[in-house]
């Protein structure tokens, strides 16, 4: 076996050119907070690596059509320091604040959270709930995919080997949309989520007009919770309705696994309770 090679491109074009000719199993490295742990655990065999960390072109948050677009290398710390992100994607910033400790936040990127597609990723459920799209870029062009199509399964994505995530867009906030984010873990810093919930909903004349919700750690990857919308849209937010919606989403939309951190039944129960609490808070206008 020839020794693995690390490529450190100096521009996006160089990175794309490097990927175009690279072996399919070539790894992209951003902040390394997932990959370096995988190397440590031996889960990932030696392979060529293209490091993106120095590509400032892939950093930063900017306005796009009243929403925002952020480069794939935007870190959790960048989000925490961005007034635009706070104004346009408040719940994403809330989620970023709960990712690891400061040392992790300074390195963990939005593109890396998507790239790993871990069930326990904290940012991905928020991106799903906010209707975000992923822009994939290769030497031959680019394409936009909704996050739910980008995340295809347990640590699996729709990225082709010659593509990288260039940026992520969050559409403008619909008038009156209320949002909630909640992470349930074991301790505040550095904890891997047991359940993460993100909600975005609008109410008009005492009824739900739109509901988009997503959860993490309740299925092989972050998932939308379509049952919640099915139960709630067109309905008033009364207690019984919210109870039923939370119960149905936990039953029908979640597919949790037993693992070292929790049992499947426990995760379903936590999901139901957290959804119920957050729906209540959202309906109350919090």
């Amino acid at each position, binding site marked *: 076996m020839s020794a*693995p090679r690390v490529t*450190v491109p100096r521009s996006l074009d160089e990175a794309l050119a490097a990927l175009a000719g690279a072996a399919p199993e070539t790894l992209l490295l951003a902040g390394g907070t997932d990959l370096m742990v995988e190397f440590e*655990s031996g889960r990932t065999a030696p392979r060529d690596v293209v490091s993106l960390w120095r590509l400032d072109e892939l950093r930063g948050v900017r306005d796009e059509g009243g929403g925002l677009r952020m480069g794939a290398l935007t870190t959790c710390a960048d989000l925490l320091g961005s007034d635009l992100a706070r104004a346009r994607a408040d719940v994403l910033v809330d989620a970023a604040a709960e990712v690891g400790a400061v040392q992790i936040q300074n390195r963990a990127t939005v593109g890396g959270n998507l790239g790993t597609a871990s069930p326990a990723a904290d940012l991905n459920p928020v991106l799903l709930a906010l209707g975000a799209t992923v822009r994939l870029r290769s030497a031959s062009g680019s394409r936009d995919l909704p996050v739910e199509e980008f995340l295809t399964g347990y640590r699996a994505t729709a990225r082709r080997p010659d593509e990288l995530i260039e940026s992520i867009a969050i559409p403008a906030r619909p008038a009156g949309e209320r949002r909630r984010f909640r992470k349930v873990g074991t301790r505040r810093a550095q904890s891997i989520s047991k359940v993460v919930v993100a909600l975005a909903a609008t109410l008009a004349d005492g009824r739900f007009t739109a509901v988009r919700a997503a959860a993490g750690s309740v299925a092989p990857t972050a998932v939308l919770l379509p049952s919640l919308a099915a139960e709630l849209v067109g309905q008033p937010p009364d207690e019984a309705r919210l109870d039923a919606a939370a119960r149905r989403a936990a039953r029908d939309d979640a597919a949790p696994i037993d693992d070292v951190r929790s049992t499947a039944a426990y995760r379903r129960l936590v999901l139901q309770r957290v959804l119920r609490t957050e729906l209540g808070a959202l309906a109350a206008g919090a």
Partner: protein
Amino acid sequence: MTERRVEEERRGFSRRAFLQGAGGVAAASSLTEAVHAAQDPASEVQRMRGPEEVELRVNGGTLPATVEPRTTLLDALRHRVDPPLTGTKLVCGEGACGACTVLVDGRPMYACMLLAADVVGREIRTVEGLADGDGLSPVQEAFCEKDGLMCGFCTPGFLMSATGLLERKPDADAEEVRRALSGNFCRCGTQPHIFEAVAEAGRRLREGGR
């Protein structure tokens, strides 16, 4: 630890081998074998396959270091600069303990999870850069006064996290201090003293005592 070894053997490789270029070429390579833009003359793309000499900006100076493609910054600091900078510690090697915390452009990061190649040209600060000759930094002084250490193994990491915080925000409150230090662990249980020390250092910095 043993479990990991067994697992590595079963799989036939280890991260350490991986991070060091999987051995294959290491022995035979000379610096000139580093595959620079050689295959791609029009491009500035840097390709590393073997060891290569880079310059790291550390504590205000420039240090040459011979690094492999997958050498971490931690490995480079501890083993590949002369004299070695062993103040930055290796404990877990996977982002869980904070013993390897350094500042990169003023921000605390885990050196065990950072490729040396990715921080060439960036300003790196380690615990060795805190004191000015024999004069300890305000954070170091406060750690001594408040007994912020027992065995001391975690101390360099805590000092760097605290310094990173206070340089940006000398008026950080108790909650901010706690959060800024939440990526550092102390097996000896000195956290309460450390929190006190950082609060004290903040007070001094605010009062202008450098």
